[in-house]
């Protein structure tokens, strides 16, 4: 795989729909394109319900039974993940791609010690004996920042704090040195101090092992100074991609512009209180009733006539800055 550096993982025109038992199917992802280069930290920024978690599950083929990948390809190191069998997928998950979920309180097994839970991942994928496994787990615990790893090894998840649990989940995810790490809202349940620590830990993992990390969040502030590239999602589609500096410094899409304005306004200044926040009015569209035109059109302050009746294709106003907005072409 010579071109693995070039195209490490690529999602092309991925469409995923949910088929609820009663009611019309809902398209959670609609023609999503995203490319991951090896060793990058890529951020997916979007509101709840925009499909960002569906994208994370789709990458691991962990979608619930009532969801279907309607079209598209997910290329990972030259293979299309959508064509793999369940057995092949089991070999892949945890070894090459792993997931850090939003709530470690739910993803960890409450009746197993954390040491044996991390060891379980190693046992599933690597031919090493119990002694080596224990050593490896101790190393991993130290790597994610536990000084007294022996005590933590035999602790149960409920004895740990939220931040500690998230570290355990990270240790579990990096146990087999995966090439791709998917972190779905890794810090949303943690307070600000812990958020900064988790972000630093993920950056360190990338630096040491060259792991590609896909981070999903609704908070632009999380990505600042952390992600290399950011893809902004809105109502099931990626609407803008750019480097971290470009997205924050020169956002192109009106939605991104508004989001960055809000994020910048919550910067601690202490100069004056009680002034209005620069909010975006309205709500994102109901996924079962997506408008034909641009999905952001009802909330957009720069809407034009064309916006309400056709969806903008991808324009490239600057090199490698795709954006879906009629401001940049017709």
């Amino acid at each position, binding site marked *: 795989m010579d071109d693995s550096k070039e195209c490490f993982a690529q999602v092309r025109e991925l469409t995923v729909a949910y088929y609820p038992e009663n009611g019309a199917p809902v398209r959670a992802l609609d023609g999503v394109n995203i490319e991951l280069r090896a060793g990058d930290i890529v951020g997916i920024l979007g*509101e709840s319900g925009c499909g960002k978690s569906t994208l994370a599950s789709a990458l691991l083929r962990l979608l619930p039974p009532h969801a279907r990948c309607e079209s598209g390809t997910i290329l990972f190191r030259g293979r299309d993940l959508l064509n793999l069998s369940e057995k092949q997928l089991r070999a892949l998950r945890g070894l090459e791609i792993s997931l850090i979920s939003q709530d470690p309180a739910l993803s960890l097994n409450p009746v197993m010690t954390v040491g044996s839970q991390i060891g379980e991942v190693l046992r599933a994928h690597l031919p090493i004996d119990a002694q080596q496994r224990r050593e490896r787990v101790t190393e991993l615990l130290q790597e994610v920042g536990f000084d007294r790893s022996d005590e933590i090894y035999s602790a149960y998840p409920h004895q740990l704090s939220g931040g500690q649990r998230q570290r355990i989940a990270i240790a579990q995810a990096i146990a087999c040195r995966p090439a791709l790490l998917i972190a779905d809202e890794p810090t949303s349940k943690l307070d600000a101090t812990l958020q900064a620590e988790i972000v630093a830990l993920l950056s360190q993992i990338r630096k040491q092992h060259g792991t590609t990390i896909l981070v999903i969040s609704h908070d632009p502030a999380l990505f600042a100074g952390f992600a290399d590239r950011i893809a902004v999602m809105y109502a099931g589609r990626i609407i803008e991609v750019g480097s971290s500096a470009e997205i924050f410094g020169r956002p192109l899409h009106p939605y991104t512009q508004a989001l*960055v304005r809000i994020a910048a306004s919550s*910067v*601690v200044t202490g100069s004056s209180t009680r002034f209005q*926040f620069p909010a975006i009015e309205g709500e994102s569209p109901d996924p079962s009733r997506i408008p034909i035109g641009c999905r952001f059109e009802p909330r957009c302050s720069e809407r034009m006539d064309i916006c309400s009746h056709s969806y903008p294709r991808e324009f490239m106003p600057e090199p490698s800055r795709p954006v879906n907005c009629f401001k940049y072409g017709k």
Partner: protein
Amino acid sequence: MESNLPTNSSIDTWTESLLCVKGLHKQYVRGGLWWKRVPVAAVSGVDFEILRGQTFALVGESGSGKSTVARCVARLEKPDSGRILIQGTDIAQFHWRDLLPFRASIQIVFQDAVTSMNPRFSALEVIEEPLLIQRQRSQGEYTPQNRRDLVRTLMEEVGITPDWMNRSILHFSGGQRQRLALARALALRPQLLVLDEALSGLDLSTQAQIANLLLDLQATHSLTYFLISHDLALVARLADVIGVMSRGQTVEVGQTQQIVTNPNHVATKKLLASAKPTASNLTALTGEST
């Protein structure tokens, strides 16, 4: 009225104390079986005062005891010792029967609006519930028609169209449910609104909308807010006075400006430092000089 506090001109009655908490202590017991039970001090010495019309924010790391303070103030928990003075009356040890009139003037909104509502209720039922609970006091003031009208007004106030009042709350989005929770809290026209992480866990754009709504409601109803949050950056935009909690104690209380620019305690500095890296990154990237 003369006020020496440098802030908004609309606040002219900042002299009357609405809530005063003195030496609050609360201990929980951990462990299920009696021989394993260990007392855990959640709050051990909290003092602060909230003046009428003010926005007071209690910030701190998770586990610092700030939610316990909120629950004690709303008297969902009974404090072990200490005083909670509402306009001079100490409600800390009141029996629940005597609390009823005070409950109307202190309302609480939680982080997760969904879990605080009966999932089988419609928006109307959710909002009118406090009116029914306080029915004894209002002495038949609220007929079904009156209640419906009041709910209509409340929904308009929080920015949800009253046509949706018969919809099940399950059909509302996260931001809309938080608006409904606010409408319910406002139903009894309280004086003090306790917002326990009411803005956390929302999307950024929704968070900004709800924050703006809070500012509007405060202006129209001259409300007093008691915010509980771990997000100093957000709170600094809303609060007049900030109290910092660490390990169950208030370690620093001061004007927002002073807390942000000239913190004294280690815990405050730590909170600021965790808010500042992202802040400085953002300002560096957006190129704004604020």
